[in-house]
């Protein structure tokens, strides 16, 4: 399972990096989104993955060993929110750039 | 899986429901692959959203009712929402596809009955526009 997840993270990150380096703004925004999936999963994986051990407590049986590590999850949540905000911002900036320059090239001019 | 006290009949029922539901859903998705035109494909996913969903949710209801000793009704909500929203999506999508195909004069699609259609479609194509787009 760890291997599969790791490969998945790697592919998401790799595809994202490839897109990040492309000349069109749309490619970059898709790349950034893929990277953010990868990063979120990466952070998540730092807590070691566990099946069926959600961090919702059962007040009756409060043994920390029964639950997953909540810290990475909290971090991922913050990262998701910030990632969402940044995607929105980048989208609008790329639209504005396209509007001003007439092109969707990342440099604002065709090369 | 909680414990051995789970009754056999329920286990069998849940299993059957789950497998049946998932197989139906799979069948729908295979249809997505096999059907040749979009209008055929549009029939496929409804298998999954109708009885595929019903069976699997029923399995879930049985399972949780037995294990938690109280009725699990969440599934009903899922079913209601899925069966309300899926047709809406499909209708909008199908109508959009129809429109797109008509613009491109797909011979397999019934044209609008309106006799003016052809002339004005030409006219609208005179308007400054880029070549027809295959994609989005």
């Amino acid at each position, binding site marked *: 399972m760890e291997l599969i997840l790791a490969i998945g993270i790697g592919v998401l990150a790799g595809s994202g990096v490839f897109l990040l380096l492309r000349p069109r703004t749309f490619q970059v925004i898709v790349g950034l989104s893929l990277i953010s999936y990868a990063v979120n999963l990466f952070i998540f994986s730092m807590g070691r993955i566990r099946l069926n051990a959600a961090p919702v*407590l059962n007040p009756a049986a409060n043994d920390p060993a029964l639950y997953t590590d909540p810290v990475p999850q909290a971090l991922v949540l913050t990262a998701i929110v910030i990632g969402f905000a940044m995607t929105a911002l980048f989208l609008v900036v790329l639209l504005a750039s396209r509007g001003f320059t007439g092109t969707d090239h990342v440099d604002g001019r065709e090369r | 899986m909680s414990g051995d006290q789970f009754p056999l009949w329920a286990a069998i029922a849940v299993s059957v429901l789950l497998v049946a539901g998932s197989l139906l859903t799979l069948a729908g998705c295979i249809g997505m692959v096999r059907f040749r035109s979009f209008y055929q494909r549009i029939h496929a996913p409804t298998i999954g959203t109708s009885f595929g969903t019903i069976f699997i949710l029923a399995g879930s209801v049985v399972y949780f009712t037995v294990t938690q000793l109280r009725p699990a009704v969440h599934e009903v909500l899922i079913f209601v929402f899925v069966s309300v929203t899926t047709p809406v999506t499909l209708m909008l999508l199908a109508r959009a596809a129809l429109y797109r195909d008509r613009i491109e004069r797909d011979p397999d699609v019934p044209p609008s009955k309106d006799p003016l259609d052809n002339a004005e479609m030409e006219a609208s194509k005179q308007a400054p526009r880029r070549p027809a787009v295959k994609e989005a």
Partner: protein
Amino acid sequence: MSSEVLLTVLIVLPFLSSLVAGSLPANARNAEVWLAGAVALIGLAITISFYPDVTGGEVVRYEIPWLPSAGLNLIIRMDGFAWIFSMLITGIGFLVVLYARYYMSPKDPVPRFFAFFLAFMGAMLGVVTSGNIIQLVVFWELTSVTSFLLIGYWYHNANARDGARMALTVTAIGGLALLVAMLLVGHVIGSYDLEAVLASGNTLREHPLYTTILILMLLGAFTKSAQFPFQFWLPRAMAAPTPVSAYLHSATMVKAGVFLLVRFWPVMAGTDQWFWIVSSAGLITLVMGAYAAIFQQDLKGLLAYSTISHLGLITTLLGMGTPLAAVAAIFHIVNHATFKASLFMAAGIIDHETGTRDLRRLSGLFKYMPFTGTLAIIASAAMAGVPLLNGFISKEMFFTETAIRNPNMFANLALPIGAIVAGIFSVAYALRFVYGVFFGPQPTDLEKVPHEPPSLMRIPIEVLVLICLIVGIIPGIAIGPYLATAVVAVLGQDTPHYSLSIWHGFNLPLLMSIGALIGGVILYIMLRPYLALGLEGPPLMRRLVGQRIFERILVTISWKWAKTVERWAGTRRLQPQLFLLVLICVVTAWFALRPGFEPVKLQLGGWDPGFVILWMVGIFCAIAAAHQAKYHRLASLILMSGAGLVTCMTFVWFSAPDLAVTQLLVEIVTTVLILLGLRWLPKRFQKGDTDHTALRTKLRRYRDIVLGVFAGGGVAALSYAIMTRTAVPDGISRFFLERAYTEGGGTNVINVMLVDFRGFDTFGEIAVLGVVAITVFALLRRFRPAADSVEKPEQQRIQNAYDDLRPNRQSGDTVNEYLMIPSVIMQWMFPVIIVLSAYIFLRGHDLPGGGFAAGITMSIGFILQYMAGGTRWVEDRLRILPVKWIGTGLLIALATGLGAWVFGYPFLTMAFQYADLAIIGKVPMATALFFDLGVFVLVVGATVLILIALAHQSVRSPKAARSTVLPTHAVEPPPEPALETTAVETPALEIPGGAS
């Protein structure tokens, strides 16, 4: 007054009065002169008052703490040598002020002039009285800066600008070298105190860094004193007003270089390196300067090269390394200052009275200005080394030193020959000056009839020439004790016996003097026909113009090369920048990883077929999305959603329901958002890649794929490595699991962390969301679509045309029919989604959910209405004020956090209790809920604002950005459509009930 106060006044007064001078009105010429003159005189008086304290090698020191921890305190240190320099600076300074009163035109804005002048005087005094070698550099650089301003005083003149810039550049280079030298001296000796440095000559000379220090120090001295090969800036500095030249290039600025050589003579001189470098540079300068001076056509140019030559003489003397030579050098410093200052002033008077300094046009002026003529002749004679004048004595001492038999060949041959040649040249140029200007035929093409200047303007020259005479005739009385004071201060116990009498008998130096005089006369007579040609520049060296070479080097290095290197080492394109970022990250992470990393053992087993297939699908989607993103945006977006869903499912799989829910909601909103944007992007069609550029593109693509593989592989390896390690046993997570319920009051640890344990993160996170929403809003207010996106999308145009053509239809009927049935369901989902949102909000603390998820849900409800009914339809019915919601949300969260202060707890301390309410029963009441409410309100506001601001672009009557290539950003938009500001911003806060 105590000596401390006096010393402080000596240094500080010029700077303070500089500020005063600069703030006087432009026409305050006399006030400026009174001020500057008074400052100079006070300085002179103070200096004189220190005479008793510094005779016999005594030193007066005053230390003011400045940067004690870095070993840099201000030490004002007056010894004999500093004293004699201070005399020159203040004395000649006073005379120059007086002279400038008459020289400067009433139209000139003299406040600036005197401000710079006084600052320069202060800097110069600072240099000579520095008791700390870093402090010396400080004032040294200040002289560079202030002299730059003085030289560039007439900046409307291109020559002045260039001359000033060159002087600054050259002397600043030297100054920085000097700084390094001093830092190294400090490193070697362990102190920057001049006293300590002067006491450590042996340490310094024997240190391996000696040569480095020497070279750096000489760079400073040579640039300042215009020694070969840095002599070229000085003639260009002649563009300065003459008072400036008279001051800077006789007594002060250029003397700073030789001052430095003398100052460090006791510790640095006496080695082979010193001898070779200093004396050869000095000798070359001496001869070359004198040679070039003969052929100058500009009066001040002649004096400038003569100055170079005399400085070369002083440098040569210092280079010899013998105490007697040092005495001669110090003596010549003083002598040169007096006669050269008077000559510059005389040249200025000539310029002033005739309107030209060109030797080709000047002639026979003695008849018109006999007084000035006489003074200039005497001063020139001093410069030429004619007996009974001060120049003679020091020059004779120079000849004496060169004539001494020396163990090495260079000294035996080159020095005396060079000395005598230079002597001949100096006589020749002095003659040229005197004869060319004052004698010969009547001047013809002068703009005005020359006459004597105002007598007060002559006083400074008269004083100086008088000094030349007195010192030349009775040196022992006139200068002897003072010179001795200076010499002892430098040489201390090494002070040799020397005599300052005019007559030493008939000896070799005298012969050399006579030879030089006769040779000079002969040379001048021989050269007269050539000089009559009026050619610019000296023969043989005409094409070797130092300043031009320097300029060219400077431009090449500082402009052309810099531009090339900038282009080569940098880029303005985004792709290479991102490539480098990723590459560097991969490489550094790899290097960091290498030590202490055990390769991980593959752990197979525990395979979950569903999960494996799921991720195969996810991987497929990710790669396909990357593949399609260029030409098939919609496909790419859909595939990306696929990968996103797989990510959500993974969160579920590994027990993170909160993440799954949040990611899912964000996923939906993001898709809608990007779709809203797609409309404004250009259509893109697949082209065949055929030509040469396609190959490059392809190669770049392969390169990027390789980097992507490495980056992805790296991330995968890192995550695999961590996942297969056991968790850190004493990590912080246990704390949260143990206390979330008992002390945080919630069973959903994630939510308790978000609103309580790490509530501050959430606090910042909502701030980010708010800021981004506001930014988006602000940016979109100025949004201009590109020309080809202005029109409505093709589909709408066709559909509207269809409707318009039919009498029974209205524009928009097609879309209404299209949405007629679906919109019913979409509208009725609205209250359902609101209830769902409330549900998600409330259950957050105990089960997956919370303010953020609820907020996003709510905004999806809004967006659904916009999709169903259109912008106008919704905004006719609902008043949405997202900006205010953002503000309110932030304030709610803030207030919740601040609430804890009332109870004496830190910010964001949450309280919880199970409230036993009448009907409802036991209900957990955590203040965290209020915090979460703030989050909810903000998230709704921000998300809705972003989506609506974007959606609004379609209903505005958009005007395209005018052109893609407009050079400035001056093109600005037409006014906003009212819709934007009113509907989204103005009315009061209320959701429902806007309609009635």
